[in-house]
Every structure is written in structure tokens, then in C-alpha cells.
């Protein structure tokens, strides 16, 4: 049965953009009329150090804050989260709820037989896919891995539209400039940057969109039940 609110845990490594992905995910869900909250949780801000963030999405107000202890969905951004325990909770699926979902960015299967058994007993579906390679193929840079993971999340959910994801990405990469673009000096800087930014946005968007299609097809194939209720007020943006 689809839930009225879900919690997503996104453990990754510093520099991978898990925090950015969580923020864009919440912005996109908010755009489609969901209640949504995102927050990061990190220690030392350095590359390859554990960095976790969270997104909560629902059709009812969301009060819960902080680390997600009992997630519906876990998005593993890097194999080292599992192989080297670079996360705040061990094992990586600690606390996961029944009928949940785990998406792992890895080029090979990292689950032990024990993991598989535990997750199967909880009816948790697992998708392992090399989203870093996917990002390189789609956008020409591994820096777009987080966009692939973002698209993968929404493809599996199926209730947040691609246009909302686009809004989320634009909000993240354009907002700061539009907010303080009052002066002529700043305007010219924006115009120069805009071409580059537009390119960046387009590539991010196409990566997220392709990953969305990939997991949507996978969800259908494995019979993933709908996890999250459709938005009750999706601003007219019907999910595709």
C-alpha cells in the first residue's frame, strides 16, 4: 500500500553531491505539491569522507527532522559506503522498513547472502547499477552521478514529474544569481555564465531523465509496488 509519507536516506562520500541531490529531490517534490524537507548530516567537509543527507516527502505535513533512522528508501552513492562502512549506520540498510527500496551505485553486486535474506524477508527490492558509468556516458562527467541517482529515485517512485525535477535543478543552479542580479555589473556576469550554466543544467537534466526511465522500467520489471501516494496537489504536473 502506498504511504502518505516516506523517508529517504542518501549515504555517499564527500564531493559526490549527495547533499545537492537531497535538496533537489525535496525541491522537486515540493514543486509537485508534496510536503518535502531535506537536510544534510556531515562531519569533516572533505572529499571521500562519509557524507549523508536525507529527503522526506509526503502528502501530509512532515515534522520529523535530522538523521533518518527508519528509512523507506536507501540510496547508496558509493561502493565504499558498504565495503568500508562509510556511513553513520551499519549495515547500510539498518532500520529499513518493510516493502522498501535500496538503490546501490556499484559496478558489481555487494550484497552478502545474509544481506539478501534480511532484505528479502522485509520485501525490500534492491537495484545495483553503475550510475557513475551511466553519468559519464550521459553527461561526460562522473560529477553527474548525483543527477543519475536523483533520476533513479524518482523513476522508482513514479509520482514526481520530470518537469518538477527540472525545476529543482534550475532552482539549485540559477537561484543565487537571480536573487542578487540587481546591478548591471552582475547582469553581464550572469549572461556570460548563463550559457555555461544552461549547458550544465541541460546535461544534468538529460542524465536525471535517462536514469528516471531506467529505474521506471526496472520497477515495472520486478513488480515494485507503489511506495508513495500521488501528490494531492501537484500543480497540474501529472506524472508521466
Amino acid at each position, binding site marked *: 500500500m502506498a504511504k502518505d509519507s516516506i523517508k529517504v536516506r542518501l549515504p555517499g562520500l564527500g564531493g559526490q553531491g549527495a547533499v545537492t541531490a537531497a*535538496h533537489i529531490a*525535496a*525541491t522537486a517534490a*515540493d514543486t509537485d505539491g508534496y*510536503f*518535502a*524537507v*531535506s*537536510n*544534510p*548530516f556531515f*562531519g569533516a*567537509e572533505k572529499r571521500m569522507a562519509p557524507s549523508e543527507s536525507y529527503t522526506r516527502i509526503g502528502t*501530509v505535513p512532515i*515534522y*520529523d*527532522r*535530522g*538523521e*533518518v*533512522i*527508519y528509512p523507506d528508501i536507501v540510496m547508496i552513492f558509493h561502493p565504499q559506503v558498504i565495503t568500508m562502512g562509510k556511513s553513520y549506520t551499519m549495515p547500510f540498510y539498518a532500520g529499513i522498513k518493510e516493502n522498501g527500496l535500496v538503490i546501490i551505485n556499484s559496478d558489481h553486486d555487494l550484497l552478502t547472502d545474509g544481506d539478501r535474506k534480511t532484505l528479502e524477508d522485509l520485501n525490500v527490492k534492491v537495484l545495483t547499477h553503475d550510475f557513475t558509468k551511466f553519468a559519464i556516458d550521459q553527461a561526460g562527467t562522473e560529477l553527474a552521478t548525483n543527477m543519475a541517482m536523483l533520476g533513479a529515485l524518482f523513476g522508482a517512485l513514479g509520482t514526481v514529474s520530470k518537469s518538477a525535477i527540472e525545476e529543482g535543478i534550475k*532552482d539549485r543552479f540559477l537561484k543565487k544569481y537571480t536573487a*542578487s542580479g*540587481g*546591478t548591471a555589473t552582475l547582469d553581464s556576469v550572469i549572461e556570460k555564465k548563463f550559457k555555461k550554466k544552461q549547458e550544465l543544467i541541460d546535461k544534468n537534466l538529460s542524465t536525471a531523465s535517462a536514469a528516471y526511465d531506467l529505474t521506471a522500467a526496472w520497477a515495472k520489471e520486478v513488480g515494485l509496488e507503489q511506495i508513495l501516494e500521488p501528490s494531492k496537489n501537484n500543480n497540474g504536473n501529472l506524472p508521466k
Partner: protein
Amino acid sequence: MSTIKDMTKTHNWSGQKLVTADHMLFDAPREKHFMTGSEVLKEAVKRCTVDASVSYPITPQSEAAHLIGELWAEGYVGTYFRGENEFGVMSEVAGCAMAGARTITTTSGPGTLRAMENFPQWSGTRIPCQLVLMARGINSPLTIQPDNLEVTFMLETGCQIWYAENVQELFDMSIAAFVVAEKPDVHVPIVTVCDGFFVSHTRESVMLPADDIALFPYEPYKSPLPPIDSETPPGRFLRDPFVMKSNYISYATHASWQFEVRSAVERSRPYAKHFLNGLVHVTGDADAEIAFVTCGTASNQAKEAQRDLAKQGVKSKVIKLRTIRPFPTEELLAELDGVKHIFIPEFNVVGWLEKEVKEALYKKHDAEIVGGPRVAGGMSLPSEAILKEVFEHINVEGA
């Protein structure tokens, strides 16, 4: 709108139209935005005709201090500079405020403790400055995570203390805070607290008025103590005690002044009640026998628990305290009518809110008071943990 102009009767130096706090907080049309607590504080400061801000931007802090710096660069804040450390910052805030400037700064955790001597000095000099405290843990062990132990150190500084639950409350409170602190019959500093990370770094939807309006400026000559004026002799760089004995104030005067500072905090009640829409907010079943008494993020978590309990047929309510100084004893008592079990979930190891509530209710209410559940050091407090605490203490029929 970012060129600095002269202040007129209708517009401030950045060209924003001057409005009353009532208009800003209650009447001005609002639009939805999606932002973090740090970002929303920038939006609040932008609308407050702030004269001065001093910062020491370092981890653990929030982005708020440097975002206020951006406002200064854009022409919305009169002056902005960095202190050499948090002690320096809070001293310099005092200097700005004594000179008659509307002043704000932010801090967290270790910074708060380093600056400690200044806070009672602020209230003793009756300056109406604002400190936004985004509570983070206290060392050691070294931490940067959310934990509100530091608030217990602030309780007896003579400052007003308000507690914001979320991004929206942080916006509205930090605007109202200036107005209440600057009332001539109050005129003591105000500490607007929110939980670090849970509010400062959390992105959620928030309703904001347009940014072409701003509060009327602070009027320092309505202050109960005159602002210092270094250009008109004799320039006074310290607030002289009003009855001198040797170089120090007489004990009787010092004692009475401390009482006066606390009385001033008490006199903030009617203003706080007006601008905060009451000193406590209640969610849940009015006739519940189980109540959660909370502030800040603990209110969020208790609301989740209240909703989960309702799904199991158990009635409860969340009584959120919006001010800690003054402490809303009367309002709390009124909401506790018929309550038999009080739970006080907290984000610290000492249970300072439990102590506050017990002191307030002593011989005034006979409910059982459970101080907990408590988490600390950055742990979150899931509804599941709150429900466990409730069911350990009471046998609820129908559960």
C-alpha cells in the same frame, strides 16, 4: 535596490519602504519559497533595517553569518565586520548596540561558551541586540552536531530567550525579536534559538513577504539609557553605574539592577504574546491526558509521535513553548488542565527543560512528569523512540 541612499521618513538606505512590525508579520502578502534556516535568516535580516552585524564565521556555525555579509555587500546592512573570535564578536556587538545601532550576530556551541562573559554584560547594559543561537554541541568530545545543551548556560544571563521550531518560525521570530527587545520598557537583549542542522541546514517551504519592505529603524533615543556618543564630549565608552562607590557600583544598586533586568524580561510578555501569537502553541487533542512539553525540534518530533499515537487510538497533545525567558508558566498551566502524564523529550543530556517545567509546576499541578526521551550529540529523536518511552510509563487502554 542595492545602492545606499539617505534614510527618509518613508524609505531606508537601501530603498525599502518602511513598515510596522504588524504589517510585516501579519498583513503583508506572502509568497512561498523553499530554503534553509540559514537562508531564511538572511531574508529576515534583509527586512529589518539592520545597522550593524559582526561575525566570526567558522565551523561549527551556520552559513547565516556570511549570508548577512552578502546583505552588507548588497547594501541592506549598515556595517559588517569580522571579530577576532566569538568573545570579540559579542563585545563588538555590545559596542555597536551601545552606540544606538540595531545589531545582530549568530553563534553556536563552543562559540557561545567562549563569548559567555558578554551575555550578562549585554543585559546589564540594557542593549536590545539580537543573538541568533543555532544550537550545536558543546565540546569535548569534539562535535559539530545539533544538541541544545548550550541553552542551559544562557538561561540566567538576563537575556530574553525565544525558541524557533522550524524555518518559518525562525523568520518570523527573528523579525519580532528586534521589535520586542527595542520596546523602551523592555530593552534587554534577545536570544533567538533554533536547533543547528535541524533548522539551520534543513530546507523546507516557507512563506515570506516581499523584500521591498523593511522595519522602521531602531530609535536609540527612546532607550532607557542614552546611547554613547563619542563625538559629543564627554564621550562615554562604558555604561557608568548610576551610583558609584569607589570604581564599582554599590552592592544595593547592583542587586536592584539585576532585579530590574529580570523585571524587564518579564515586561516583554504582552509584546511577545502579540507578535508570537501566544507564548505556547498546542497541537493534538485538547482533552488528552498525555502531554508533551517541548521546544524547538523536540516539538517536531513530538508532533510525529502525537500523530502516530492518534493512529493507535491514543489521545495526546504537544504543548510547544515559544519563549523560555520569560517562562510561560501561566499559559502552560492552562493547557495542562486534565493532563495526567507529561513527557519532556529533549536534545541534550541534562534535561534543562525538564528542570524548568518541574520548577514552574511545583505544587501547582499534580501530573506525573517524565523527563524524556533524551538524545544528544547529534542523534535524532524518531517518533518510535518517543512512543517507546510513553508505553514504558503508562498502560494505555486500546493501545
